[in-house]
């Protein structure tokens, strides 16, 4: 029996101490690293500076929008209605691996900034404005743009104030995002949402594009935990089974199957078309 060994940089469990991405947990990280810092290490394998951790805390706070009516959180509540916290939490995470909402949509916005930065670097002097104009004209869909149900994304406005307060507004990806947003608003009349700003900030902190969804997942956990915990404690019967009249059926009308019809006619099945092989 031979199974190739798998390399891991994550951790090793010892008898008197443990390793985590190259650090002793009990002598180097204990007392020196924060919970958020450990989660950043879990994604990138490296420690992050205090200033960036503070910015990540700001980002987590502006993304705290834990209203149980929001779709992934409602999903969490519905599963929690049987009283299980972790099943509800896990289920809430599963629907986020797509480009419509949540952490992965932020990654697509980060890809936009990465592409824009590459274009500017290789443009040979045409400049940021020209590249932005070209990209806005070229791309039909712009991840990170469009604010549903309200004129502006209040989270991004709040984040912008924190960015200015921390004097991060001149960092490359953030300023690129701000210039891009102006152009998009002029050209299409839509504004940026939190994904546009969050992704730019994460790139400014040195995160790689593939790290973005995992970091965003970490930063949004409080929203899911809160709903899984309260939902499981309440375990409301109202969510376990809604009244029948809360659903409108729009499917096929009542009908009888061929076999039921044949039984009514005396047991003879109607003729079935022959099954054709896929090739001759």
């Amino acid at each position, binding site marked *: 029996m031979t199974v190739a060994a*798998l390399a891991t*940089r994550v951790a090793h469990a010892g008898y008197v101490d443990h390793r985590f991405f190259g650090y002793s947990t009990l002598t180097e990280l204990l007392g020196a690293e924060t919970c958020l810092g450990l989660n950043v290490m879990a994604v990138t394998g490296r420690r992050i500076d205090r200033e960036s951790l503070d910015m990540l805390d700001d980002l987590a706070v502006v993304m705290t929008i834990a209203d149980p009516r929001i779709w992934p959180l409602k999903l969490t509540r519905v599963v929690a209605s049987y009283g299980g916290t972790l*099943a509800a939490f896990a289920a809430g995470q599963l629907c986020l691996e797509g480009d419509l909402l949540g952490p992965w949509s932020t990654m697509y916005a980060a890809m936009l900034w990465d592409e824009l930065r590459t274009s500017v670097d290789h443009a040979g002097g045409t400049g940021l404005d020209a590249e932005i104009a070209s990209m806005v004209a070229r791309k039909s869909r712009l991840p990170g743009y469009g604010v549903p149900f309200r004129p502006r994304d209040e989270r991004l406005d709040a984040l912008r104030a924190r960015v200015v307060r921390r004097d991060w507004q001149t960092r490359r990806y953030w300023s690129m995002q701000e210039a891009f947003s102006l152009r998009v608003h002029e050209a299409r009349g839509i504004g940026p949402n939190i994904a546009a700003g969050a992704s730019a900030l994460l790139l400014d902190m040195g995160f790689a594009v593939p790290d973005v969804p995992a970091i965003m997942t970490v930063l949004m956990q409080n929203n899911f935990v809160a709903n899984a915990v309260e939902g499981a404690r309440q375990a409301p019967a109202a969510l376990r089974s809604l009244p029948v009249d809360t659903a409108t*059926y729009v*499917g096929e009308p009542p009908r009888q199957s061929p076999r039921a019809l044949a039984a009514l006619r005396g047991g003879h099945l109607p003729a*079935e078309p022959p099954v054709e092989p*896929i*090739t001759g």
Partner: protein
Amino acid sequence: MTSVPARVLDGPAEGQPWPETLTARVVTPGPRPRVHGYDVEDDLARHYRFGEAILLALTGLPPDPATGSAFEIALTFLSPLAVTEAPTHAALLARACAGSTAAVTGTAAVALAEHARWLVARHAPTLAWLEGGGDDEVPEIARALDDDERRSVRRLRDVLIERAAFQLPERDFGRDAALLAVLRLCGVRRAEQMELAIVASRLCTSVAEALAGARGALRDYPLNLPPFVYVEDAR
């Protein structure tokens, strides 16, 4: 702790028009359920086997007897997923961690769904080839890797002919490709339908394997299979 009413707050959930009811498209809510319009208790339960009812749920159409049998044969061929495969392995670990039956089943369901997604995506060339009529050369991913696979596909062909008069073309299919071809012949054509059929076929066997082990038997689990080697990068 005494709860007090929150301030009257306004937001998108209050300020937008939203539908007031859920929309049901397959199963009628209420005491007399129908699936795609067919009465479950008085029609499907009388005239259709469980596998056929699954196929009806997937496609919206009650299958003819040959198609129903072929689909059930495909499900049966798909159903075993040994403990060496990730979904059953994961379910066994959930059992070893003293997870509840719900936790074991949920773990298996998630891993099976991932496995099915991976399998169907991997076979995109196979599905495109089948969609095109299957006249060209069989894509590489669809070909049998060894004689064990060829013998398995031979057994599939034989039982399809015996029990369903269902003919799988004589091509050098691998087992997975042959089973996807049968699903497609049964009307399960879209990738999402195939993924669901695969998960449905495997959930019970995977969880049964896990539940056959002792709950909380951490010491019985081979911790170093496969071995992990911890490496550190220079700081």
